[in-house]
């Protein structure tokens, strides 16, 4: 409870630092903020090229790029935020050691700036959906309205993971490399480029279900691409993952807070 109070107290700080991050990231680059939009588009084109031209996927009914888009965006939000969170504290050592600074703000700033990127990419996804709809390849579903809800749940989940890895990697530097590799693997064991239902082996499917990102990605695909509500199991899983991850994040952070300034 105390942690939540302190978060509320630091909301201005987190907002200001997020704005700073976003500004600083694009200052000096010619296209500036446009990169936030261009990055997912370019990524999408690459994957579309690979999976429609080189390795055509027949399993997904409908425009494959849209399916891909629905899964890649939340995955990128998760992986980029968590990966950056691992260094969020150690790269701001000056703040932790020299200023009375709430360390938990650092991973949360990372999460919120990636959330902004994610949110900015959403209109592109909607525009693409609109374009396909005009071409009568797909219809726009009302379930798109559920996306903000999913984003909130996912943000909570990502924030918990980010806080955990941010504080733990100060003491255990190898964590960053471990996570980098896990993310590579994670991309493929999350049903982003394929449908989970198309996996024939039952144990493998069960394994995929264990991946906490699976229910999130599947639900995004449900509401954005397939136009139906997320499954009950997935919904329950998402809520429990979000809560569990937050609890773990606060617990680990609270445990490590006192030694952070010393261990950096």
């Amino acid at each position, binding site marked *: 409870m105390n942690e939540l109070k302190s978060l509320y107290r630091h909301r*201005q*700080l987190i907002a*200001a*630092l997020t704005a*700073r991050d976003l*500004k*600083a990231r694009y*200052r*000096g680059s010619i296209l500036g903020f446009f990169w936030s939009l261009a990055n997912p588009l370019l990524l999408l084109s690459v994957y579309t090229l690979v999976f429609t031209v080189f390795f055509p996927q027949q399993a997904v009914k409908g425009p494959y790029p849209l399916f891909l888009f629905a899964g890649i965006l939340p995955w990128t939000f998760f992986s980029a935020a968590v990966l950056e969170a691992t260094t969020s504290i150690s790269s701001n050592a*000056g*703040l*932790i*050691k*020299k*200023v*009375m*600074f709430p360390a938990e703000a650092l991973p949360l700033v990372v999460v919120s700036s990636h959330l902004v990127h994610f949110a900015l990419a959403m209109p592109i996804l909607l525009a693409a959906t609109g374009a396909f709809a005009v071409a009568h390849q797909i219809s726009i579903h009302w379930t798109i309205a559920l996306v903000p809800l999913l984003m909130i749940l996912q943000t909570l989940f990502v924030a918990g993971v980010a806080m955990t890895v941010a504080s*733990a990697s100060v*003491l*255990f*530097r*190898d964590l960053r490399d471990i996570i980098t590799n896990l993310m590579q693997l994670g991309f493929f064991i999350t049903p982003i480029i394929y449908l989970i239902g198309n996996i024939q082996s039952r144990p493998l499917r069960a394994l995929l279900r264990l991946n906490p990102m699976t229910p999130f990605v599947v639900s995004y695909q449900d509401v954005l691409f397939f136009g139906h509500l997320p499954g009950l199991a997935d919904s329950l899983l998402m809520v429990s993952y979000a809560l569990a991850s937050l609890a773990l994040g606060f617990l*680990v952070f609270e*445990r*490590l807070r*006192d*030694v952070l*300034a*010393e*261990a950096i």
Partner: protein
Amino acid sequence: MSRSVGDQRPAGGGRGAAAASFAIGVENVSKSYRLWGRRSQFATLKSALLKRDLKLEPDASVPALKKVSFVIDRGEAFGIIGRNGSGKSTLLKIISGILKPTSGRVVVSGRVAALIELGAGFHPEITGRENIYINGIMLGLTRREIDQRFDRIVEFSGIGPFIDQPVKTYSSGMYVRLGFAVAVHVDPDILLIDEVLSVGDEEFSQKCVAKIQEMKYRGVTLMFVTHQLEQVRNLCDRALWLDHGEAVAVGDPVRVVDSYLQQVAGSRTAQGVVVSATAVPAPETEAQAEENAASPRDSLEEERWGSGEVILRRVALVDDQGRELVALGAGTPVSIELDVEVRVPQDDFVFGIGIYHADGNCVYGTNTELEGFMPQHLDRDGRVRFAMRSLDLVAGSYRIDAAVHTRNGRAFDYRRGCIRFVVGARVHDIGVYRPQHHWEFEGGITFREIDLLKRNVPAPVAEYIRDNEDEPPRPKKRK
């Protein structure tokens, strides 16, 4: 707002400290830094998670502070001196809440701003303007509060039009100036300063000192960590000397700085000084110095310290006939005589005197160095006479400090309050300085007569008056 850090919470809970009369209370604070190697990273994480502690092998720790206790009153300026690695910055970081003490308790009441590294948290890619906002928020201001202070901050920093340029284009001086400007405009109740006044050019440095004096005047509690001993002497009300994590002395800044210089010089020359401790009876040992330094600020006892190569055997206030005085009337000619005993010849020496009012304010102070006397030899005993045509003070109690020290301030013999004297006067004029004067009236201004009881009296009478202060004056005895 009150904050209490440490293992042992106060019995009644830390919140009660909000109304505390002191600003910072440090009680038995110890801090050990754990050493931990690369190999045992995972063990570190595990033990940190399980025990909230960075403990590895029990012996792999370095003590940085050992049972340090002191209390800083509201509005006090408190200096911390000591060698590098003596634990000064650790102490400051513990008080600011950045580090946690290994044991002991710290209670801080009020809004704290810590100047540990100026401009820490500035982001090079964004403008000075944006950095002011972010830095201000980090220091606990709200956006609106920064809006109100923004112009003052920019003006103080002297950054001018560069305020809208990215900070990476700033010179290091501009960077530091902006950092200082933001920090002092937070309007803290307590300002912790770590060695930052030494940065920047001379002009800005003076501006910083002036700002800090202004804050002190407004009642802000100040705590400095510094190597600039002059600042401690000038700005601080009290000083703490830390050595190897232990509090060696707390008290009068002149006094503490001096014992520190003494020890630094002592360890530098090692056995260079021939005087043995027993051969020097007058100046006290280090242990006594400690004891005295911790005693209240303006005790009536003489305080004396110094290394003892040169001794002020006798300090006296004498009249023009050489008679010692303890009381005098305003305007009498007097001298301060120092009988100097030379135990080890010196070629670097300064004689100084200071006259203080009983309330502790310095009335006047000078020394031979300040007045341009270049030391040549001090090889035999001698006498120094500081002659004043008249000592024009208003009635009151005063004390005199006399000292002989090296040019960099290391005392051979420092005698604080070695003479106490009273200036008696029947005129109840006020202030400290009483210029020699008389009144002239012209035109239609007349006075009936002069009440002789209210006129000044010569020294012997003043002495009599002082001794019989409570009795009604007997006019017959006076001319």
